[in-house]
């Protein structure tokens, strides 16, 4: 049980860390100042969540493990994040669609996580779900705004869906260690909510797309290597460096 719990906590930590890192790439480059602040705010929320999960994982692992060693010194194949969150930012539409697809899932996940039998995970989910509720609200409004916007924004959202949809199936395919929440049971509700938002955004919900998977087990797309190269550079180049 313990090693499953560690792997699962790391899966939650890695997913939030990598999405945070991706979103933070927008810092200073947002389409407008206010949205630059909004996306980096979300990035910081996710970073805070990942720190909680890493600290808990480190305490379960014991020994020399710390939140930093888990984030900065594990290799690509050891990361258990979802493939969806490591995908490139693309344009603003692709970034907010990635955020929406994940946040909508994360909200349902944290609801269920609050009913699991691990007190720490319950507390972390309860603390984070308000942030997540806001992420869902913010990103879904952007999906509607762009999907039901101009011809240009609509076609960009179609392209973003084409790019990202194939990575959504993995969220609902449980990994071997993923026994704490039955993710496959979240699929219908997630799809229903996404369908409602897409309908308002005049966007089609894709059917019969082959779903990529493997991230939870450490098999990633080429994107993750580049992210870790940047994320881990300082600790690799100057081991033990501190602020």
């Amino acid at each position, binding site marked *: 049980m313990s090693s499953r719990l560690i792997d699962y906590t790391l899966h939650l930590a890695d997913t939030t860390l990598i999405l945070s890192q991706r979103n933070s*790439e*927008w*810092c*200073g*480059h*947002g*389409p*407008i*100042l*206010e*949205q630059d*602040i*909004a996306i980096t*705010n979300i990035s910081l929320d996710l970073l805070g969540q990942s720190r909680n999960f890493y600290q808990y994982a480190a305490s379960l692992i014991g020994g020399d493990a710390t939140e930093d060693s888990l984030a900065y010194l594990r290799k690509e194949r050891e990361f258990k994040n979802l493939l969806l969150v490591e995908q490139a*930012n*693309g*344009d*603003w539409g692709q*970034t907010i669609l990635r955020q929406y697809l994940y946040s909508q899932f994360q909200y349902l996940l944290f609801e269920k996580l609050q009913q699991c039998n691990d007190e720490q995970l319950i507390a972390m989910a309860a603390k984070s779900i308000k942030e997540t509720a806001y992420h869902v*609200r*913010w990103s879904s*409004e952007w999906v509607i*705004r762009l999907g039901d916007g101009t011809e240009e924004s609509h076609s960009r959202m179609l392209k973003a869906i084409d790019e990202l949809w194939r990575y959504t199936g993995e969220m609902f395919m449980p990994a071997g260690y993923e026994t704490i929440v039955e993710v496959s049971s979240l699929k219908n509700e997630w799809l229903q909510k996404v369908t409602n938002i897409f309908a308002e955004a005049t966007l089609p919900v894709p059917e019969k797309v082959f779903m990529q998977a493997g991230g939870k087990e450490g098999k990633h797309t080429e994107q993750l290597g580049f992210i870790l190269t940047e994320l881990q550079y300082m600790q690799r180049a100057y081991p033990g460096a501190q602020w």
Partner: protein
Amino acid sequence: MKNFIRKFYYGDIPEEKSGGGSYQTVNDTTNWPLWEVFIRSKQGLDHKHAGSLHAADAQMAIENARDVYTRRMEGVSIWVVESKYITASNPDEAGELYEPAIDKVYRHPTFYDLPDEVNHM
């Protein structure tokens, strides 16, 4: 209100990878309108002017205000109003508007003794 947004890039990510739109030549039809933001810091106090921001509509203005002005727990309530709906007094008319009040000290309630317990006066 032309060209009031200027973007400065301080990162080393090349422009074509940044994903951001280019705002060098913003014109009035693509610009988001300006909104004034009022924040109530706690229940019972008035909404105070906090600043202004750009947003496409009122809903986005509220959310932007949440992200820009209430990140450090500054507020419990937000009002936004599009800046163009605010009518302001003309500074050139300050003389006739305000100066006549200067020598009328009797309009101040300073001739009353207030108990110490009364705050916020």
